[in-house]
């Protein structure tokens, strides 16, 4: 565990390039209703010369922001049948990998999730998938740049024992990737050892919470 004081305050911005500012604004501002909260009009003056650009920001809640760079006079650099405007992949790259990188935005209730579903379904970017299980419910689509966007709600609060479990997983993973047998089987075996070692002591300090379903 760490004794480092945790002083960060979430996402100042996560930034992506776009070649289609009109589509990007139509999606985030006009369809999802995320307000434009900031913009910078700049050129490339540093050691690495680059084109004039606009850097613009949408609020995604909690003062967190999603930002885009639009570089004047540029076109996509990657090519390939799969991916988004930032990274494109060949036919042989598995879909699960292509879809692994995505931004998931949180909402607090089923009503809110359904409202965003409604906004997307009425647009050129309808919900492609809705997944629900006992802990989360999510809707997924791709924005005009091909970036996958998820809107998700928690169906029950996270419990402290899940925090413990997550940390045991990471500790087991670090041990396993440093060893010879790097596999899920090895991870589960190592994690079992850590459970025996650390879980009883954890219980002595915590009362596990059994939340009711949302």
């Amino acid at each position: 565990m760490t004794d480092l004081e945790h002083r960060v305050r979430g996402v100042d911005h996560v930034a992506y390039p776009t070649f289609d500012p009109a589509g990007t604004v139509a999606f985030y501002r006009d369809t999802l209703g995320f307000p434009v909260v900031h913009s910078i009009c700049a050129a490339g003056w540093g050691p690495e010369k680059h084109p004039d650009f606009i850097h613009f920001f949408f609020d995604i809640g909690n003062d967190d922001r999603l930002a885009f760079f639009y570089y004047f006079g540029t076109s996509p650099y990657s090519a390939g049948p799969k991916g988004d405007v930032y990274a494109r992949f060949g036919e042989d790259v598995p879909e699960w990998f292509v879809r692994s990188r995505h931004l998931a935005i949180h909402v607090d209730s089923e009503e809110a999730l359904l409202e965003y579903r409604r906004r997307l379904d009425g647009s050129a970017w309808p919900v492609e998938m809705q997944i629900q299980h006992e802990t989360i419910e999510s809707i997924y689509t791709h924005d005009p740049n091909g970036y996958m966007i998820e809107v998700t709600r928690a169906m029950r609060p996270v419990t402290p024992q899940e925090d413990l479990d997550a940390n045991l997983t990471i500790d087991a993973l670090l041990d396993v990737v440093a060893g010879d047998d790097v596999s899920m089987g090895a991870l589960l075996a190592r994690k079992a050892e850590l459970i025996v070692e650390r879980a009883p002591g954890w219980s002595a300090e915590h009362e596990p919470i059994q939340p009711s379903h949302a």
Partner: protein
Amino acid sequence: MAPHRIGLVVPSSNVTVETEMPALLARHPAAEFSFHSSRMRMHTVSPEQLRAMNAQRERCILELGDAGVDALLYACLVAVMVGGPGEHRRVESAVAEQLAAGGSATKIRSSAGALVEGLHALGARRIALVTPYMRPLAQQVVSYLDSEGFTVSDWGALEVADNAEVGCIPGDRVMAAARELDLTGVDALVISACVQMPSLPLVDAAEQEFGLPVISAATAGAYSLLTALGLPVDIPGAGSLLCPAVRQPA
């Protein structure tokens, strides 16, 4: 060594900044400077025109960024102060962000921020000022300095609305206005809280006459630029802020 490039963002009708700043910095014993300005169109010093002027900021910064200036002075003092308390910090941040986003290492200062910085450097709390503005604008300048923690014990407004005219106000008129101020208990006099009203020749004379530190928006600007560039502050004949050896205690 190559001259330090100074960028100046000035109201379009302003001729004084581009006169006084080079004159001041030319007196520096060691460093050399070149000046490059960009203009924001403005003729009448009214709140509406000042707000419209501020909207041109992005273009001006793009232009000066292309010149690769080492430091940039946003020399539109009252235009910043009409934006309300703390506005110079917001403007300086926005300009810095615009330049930094493009990879520029330019140092950013503003005349409004420089005035505050210069007064703090003198250790001044209680101040008096002469302004060329109409009274409501002058009051906004006073309120701004108030919000920065200074006590403005007396102030004058020459009530000249046309910015070109402000650039021609004779020194006698400025000194006369200064003499009418009650300087009891004042730590420092701002002989010109305006970057268009000429005042450079008056600063030293006013210090001698009134026996207290005197600064102008211009001398404060020079102080701020020199410290931003990490250069020694040593400019003779323009008041004790710029010449620490002769600085009188506040």
